[in-house]
């Protein structure tokens, strides 16, 4: 066992309102400068949708992440180092600017400087790349709120995997949001893809960074990252990525995206894990087993053996305490409501998500049933407007069971708390039905609903 610490994040998608505040505050602080106008270290995607850059989740096309060989080893999907070496001058697996979007501004100055004429001056859109007139046709979240409907959503790689089951009819429309930052993976394929060795994972907190001096701009990391969360600064010729706000983390402040999240849905915390177990866990054969495999890598910070090993590994006591108080541990391991994003990429991502509940479908409404009643509770989960299969395509390599389990816990929590809210008797059977006690229900409710500042970070 080799204990290491990892700064991690959980986002509760059930609370995400899709407001993009995280994206904007991040951009204002980090990337509102030339060369990275198109870059959003944090972005929020409307689901269904194609994402940013477009269709990045389609690894048949972009070849990001790892693939498991017949011999049970991992190799970058885009090819090993030999292949990389041969394709180093012409990497065809790179998103083009159009796959992100062409950044633009408007000719505001014209409003003030227009000479007297016959018409009212207007501010035309101008490309920030060429400075010329442009037509705005795509942006970082053009999928917003069902805009485009079938036309755009049809390009959603997750939908395409399950197109037989989901119809994009108006009546069945669904929507939720997926905020994304760098996953700061335990098994980062970007680092493995870098010919210059410029990408590293900080030993003390696992934050993945690009050494701005060593980066030679090969851009293999852009290909290697299946989440497309490394970007090329076309001004400096270097790769840049989310830094997990390390200058803030180091002085005890949450990341900007977390602290400014007005939906109050982001949790930050330290996780201890066994660094020696990562490789094996990432290489388990069954993709459905990857979720459990990654959980098996995490070390219980309350376990005396783990604590001793952590101390032996020179992890300070206050870090061990932080790991014990970590809301991430509770959400992933204790309440088991958080799931990894695309475990099938085998990068062991460390930004996890609580999947969203959504309205019950018409079946329940028309039969006059109340979705909160115990009898209907689990039936309601299966009938939610957001298809469980879609969520499974994001979080569990397509296995619906863990997603259903999470949604049942959330639904049970609501039913359990409703009785308390109305001053009625607690119904312990509601908690037991999802394998929890009433006390655990209360604790989980507090963490998810009350979510005070000091409990989130």
């Amino acid at each position, binding site marked *: 066992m080799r204990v290491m610490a990892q700064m991690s994040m959980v986002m509760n998608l059930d609370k995400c309102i899709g407001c993009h505040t995280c994206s904007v505050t991040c951009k204002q602080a980090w990337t509102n400068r030339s060369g990275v106008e198109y870059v959003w270290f944090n972005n929020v995607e409307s689901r269904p949708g194609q994402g940013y850059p477009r269709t990045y989740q389609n690894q048949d096309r972009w070849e990001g992440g790892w693939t498991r060989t017949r011999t049970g080893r991992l190799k970058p999907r885009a090819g090993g180092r030999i292949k990389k070496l041969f394709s180093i001058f012409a990497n065809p697996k790179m998103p083009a600017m159009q796959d992100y979007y062409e950044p633009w501004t408007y000719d505001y100055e014209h409003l003030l400087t227009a000479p007297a004429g016959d018409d009212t001056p207007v501010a035309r859109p101008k490309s920030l790349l060429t400075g010329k007139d442009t037509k705005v046709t795509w942006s970082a979240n053009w999928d917003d709120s069902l805009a485009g409907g079938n036309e755009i959503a049809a390009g959603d790689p997750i939908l395409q995997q399950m197109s037989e089951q989901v119809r994009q009819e108006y009546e069945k429309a669904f929507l939720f949001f997926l905020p994304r930052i760098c996953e700061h993976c335990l098994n980062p394929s970007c680092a493995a893809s870098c010919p210059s060795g410029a990408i590293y994972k900080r030993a003390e907190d696992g934050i993945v960074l690009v050494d701005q001096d*060593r980066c030679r701009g090969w851009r293999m990391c852009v290909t290697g990252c299946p989440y497309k969360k490394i970007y090329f600064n076309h001004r400096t010729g270097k790769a840049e990525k989310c830094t997990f706000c390390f200058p803030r983390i180091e002085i005890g402040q949450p990341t900007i995206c977390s602290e400014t999240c007005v939906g109050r849905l982001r949790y930050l915390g330290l996780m201890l894990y066994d660094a020696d177990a990562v490789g094996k866990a990432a290489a388990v054969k069954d993709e459905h087993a990857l979720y459990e495999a990654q959980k098996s890598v995490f070390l219980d910070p309350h376990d005396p053996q783990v604590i001793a090993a952590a101390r032996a590994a020179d992890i300070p006591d206050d870090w061990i305490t932080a790991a014990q108080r970590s809301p991430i541990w509770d959400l992933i391991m204790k309440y088991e409501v958080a799931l990894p994003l695309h475990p099938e990429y085998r990068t062991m991502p460390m930004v996890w998500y609580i999947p969203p509940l959504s309205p019950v479908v018409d079946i329940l409404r028309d039969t006059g049933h109340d979705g909160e009643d115990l009898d209907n509770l689990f039936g309601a989960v299966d009938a939610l407007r957001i298809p469980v299969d879609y969520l499974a395509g994001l979080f569990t390599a397509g296995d619906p069971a863990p997603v259903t389990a999470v949604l049942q816990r959330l639904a049970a929590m609501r039913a359990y708390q409703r009785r308390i809210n109305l001053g009625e008797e607690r119904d312990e059977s509601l908690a037991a039905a999802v394998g929890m006690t009433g006390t655990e229900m209360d604790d989980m409710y507090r963490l998810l609903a009350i979510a005070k500042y000091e409990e989130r970070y």
Partner: protein
Amino acid sequence: MAGATERAGRALLAVGGLVRRAEVSADGRTLHQIGGREADSFYRDRWSYDKVVRSTHGVNCTGSCSWKVYVKDGIITWEQQQTDYPSVGADRPEYEPRGCPRGAAFSWYTYSPTRVRYPYARGVLIEMYREAKARLGGDPVAAWADIQADPVRRRRYQRARGKGGLVRVSWDEAQEIVAAAHVHTIGAYGPDRVAGFSPIPAMSMVSHATGARFLSLIGGSMLSFYDWYADLPVASPQMFGDQTDVPESGDWWDASYLVMWGSNVPVTRTPDAHWMAEARYRGQKVVVVSPDYADNVKFADEWLPAQPGTDGALAMAMGHVVLKEFFVDKVTPRFADYVSRYTDLPYLVALEPVDGGGYRPGKFVTAADLGETGAEAAFRPVLWDSATDAPVVPGGSLGDRFSEAGVGRWNLDLGDIVPRLSCAGGEGAEIALPRFDNDTPELMRRGVPTARVGGKLVTTVFDLMLAQYGVARPGLPGTWPSGYDDVDVPYTPAWQEPITGVPAAAVARIGREFADNAERSGGRSMILMGAGTNHWFHSDTTYRAMLTLTTLTGCQGVNGGGWAHYVGQEKCRPVTGWSHLAFGLDWARPPRQMIGTAFWYLHTDQWRYDQYGADVLTSPLAKGEFAGKHTADLLAKSARLGWMPSMPTFDRNPLDVADEALAAAPDNPAAHVAQELVDGRLGFACTDPDAPENWPRVLTVWRANLLGSSAKGNEYFLRHLLGTDASLRAEEAPPEKRPQDVVWHDEAPEGKLDLLLSLDFRMTSTTLFSDVVLPAATWYEKHDLNTTDMHPFIHAFTPAINPPWQTRTDFDAFHGIAKVFSDLAGPRLGVRQDLVAAPLLHDTPDAMATPGGVVRDWKTGEVPAVPGRTMGKFIVVERDYGAISAKMGALGPLLDRLGTTTKAVTVDVNRRSRFWAKSTAPSAVASPTAAPGWTPTSGPARPSWRCPAPPTAGWPPRASSSWNGAPANGWPIWPPSTRASRSGSPTASPGPSR
């Protein structure tokens, strides 16, 4: 081959690991850098700053969020939300972090190319002005008058509006032109021809107050904004007798049943949405009514996709279910008790016979019908007391509000009275009720039980309501729905289905759940509303159908229940101090304030195109008062009878009217004015808005984008008000559809406005069309205050940097204009008397001006013209035009003498004004009365919050009579034009107190 490549790759990886300054994991896949992190100093440098300043955003978004503004090297870099809100309790979510991406991007404006950095003026105008001024011996006022007197030159610069050609000018020259235009207009046409538009004081109340103070002191007309927001503002006064008042968003947490109705909370209430998301975890059930799959539907348990504009039908059907199942099939004690105490449901209404047999609801039965005398008797409604089995006059009605007899009775204490909700058991009478669900309004015939009181056939409001909703009871005459599934008759669940598209079963169930939850939770069912349902004609009726649901179920006034309505940032929390500052009430009362809707309707000539008569959608039971009337006729009537303000008021300069009235009747100038109006020698400007002497001449817009945003009917503004190119396609009304009481000119004027002045920090549709544009400081460059109804905090603006380039705060800009104005106006205008026409006001004894709700018009001779009774009030106010600047910067004497009055509650502020005088350095401006003053550098934000306001110390008022009696002598003030004057029957609708 694949195997060989893989082996080679692994070898390469291993070698790579050897040559790096890093620790490589055993499998070679992960490496941990040790040392060598200097290259990341870039990000550390990026995350560095010199100071963090607390400020907020002065925008009408209702959020009102506190922000940290970061400054580095004197440059604003970025902003993030403050997280230091006071805790709301251990077991509730907090307000942190409030903010949204719009606010997070505001610092972009500071240095953006759209920033207005210098004063600008229309090039063609500035050339004319300079030429005229040089020619006329350097006299700015003469130069302005010279241009205005020449139709050719005037049209030339008006035609250039909005077509580029702005040129930089100095502040001195800009102020001089602006001041000259004001002086000329006041002298030539009257001060009420000067208008100001700046909406939503709460979003930056100091900036608003400064401009409003200048305009109010000179006698200009401040235009309202709230009444311009569809039919929203009237619903709440109709229902509760008070302006829109709602719980803060933290109260959503307390609701156990939440209907989001026409409010897409994640998008429009971004910083508050989390309360809703979190409350679901308490088991709150969430229902969304929205025609589309809006963002908030994601959070809903149920989605009712009602067609746009059909929300009223949906609410009526829910009300049908609630009344039937919770009032008729069984009596819900909590609901019955609530409506008996807090609503007018038990009050008695007289029935009037109608042609063709049967009755219709008439007026409330009042104490006057029982033989009580006194002016207030007609304003004291009657109910039936079960305890004594007799009619009784309970307290808490309007008649108790402003009368000596009512002292101690203006409350909801029923004592031993047991209100009887229904006349059930009495003889049934058939009544006619209108229905509007078909192409032409028709009548429904339904029955109510009756009684006889004071010689009249009466029933209760509750009985009428059951008839209206179509909830049948045995033994009553009339035609009733056969059940919930009756498609043909209002207002069943099945009836609404073809209208709204929502299944009848779903409506019935949600209505039932809403009430059931209210019963089980003690009233914690809430309707969270927004503007989504109100952009329709008569949307006040839609609102009332929704408010009836929360009222019937006893939710109003309960934490977690009732209507939670948010459209704009209307809540200016320190309203008392702010309004006295803003409207110069320390120097003169009343100020001139004008309803924006009517002002623009008339002065942009939209009335000339309006072919939609006032009698459209008239009830078949109506008495024909609107027959053949044009909306402009109704405006003329409302001005004539004093229901609404009307600016410009008269067809003459009010300074001249005052001189004439004072000369003719020094002791009673108002009576003289009334007689002149009766005799027709004096007219209202609104009856001839296209006559040049009645045009508004100067308009100042600040904190606003009037054109392109607030202006409804932009092309009318462009053509008729501004006189520039417009894409107006509408046709003028044909002769038979024109107003009767308003003069029609064959040619509509183009270009009524002499000067459009705007103050802004960015280029907007309004600055593009302005004659003079003054560069304003942004929200990160000034002191100001900001409040909202979404939370109880007062947020301060603090400058992160000083106003850059030649920008100025609104405070400095208006004080600068006032100085130049005073210098020019003193010798030319001197001290004048100004005749101000003020309307009859809500929250004052004026509310009892129309006994029985019967309208009588002095113009037709039905009643004599009595100012303050059958018409508005006419009040002479002194204007010392040379002292405007000095008065702006000093606290006038009226606060000491008259105190402050808000909603008829007067507070003595002497103690505080003395404290303020002591704690404030003597003003640098010569104060006419040596009253305490303030200078721009002393912080303009101070007077506003130091002026005593009800929510702070000094409350409750010491003089108890001012709470339950007439306001102290002097003029009561009203909130900033947000109050809809109540016309018609001012009958009591006692609502619950929060």
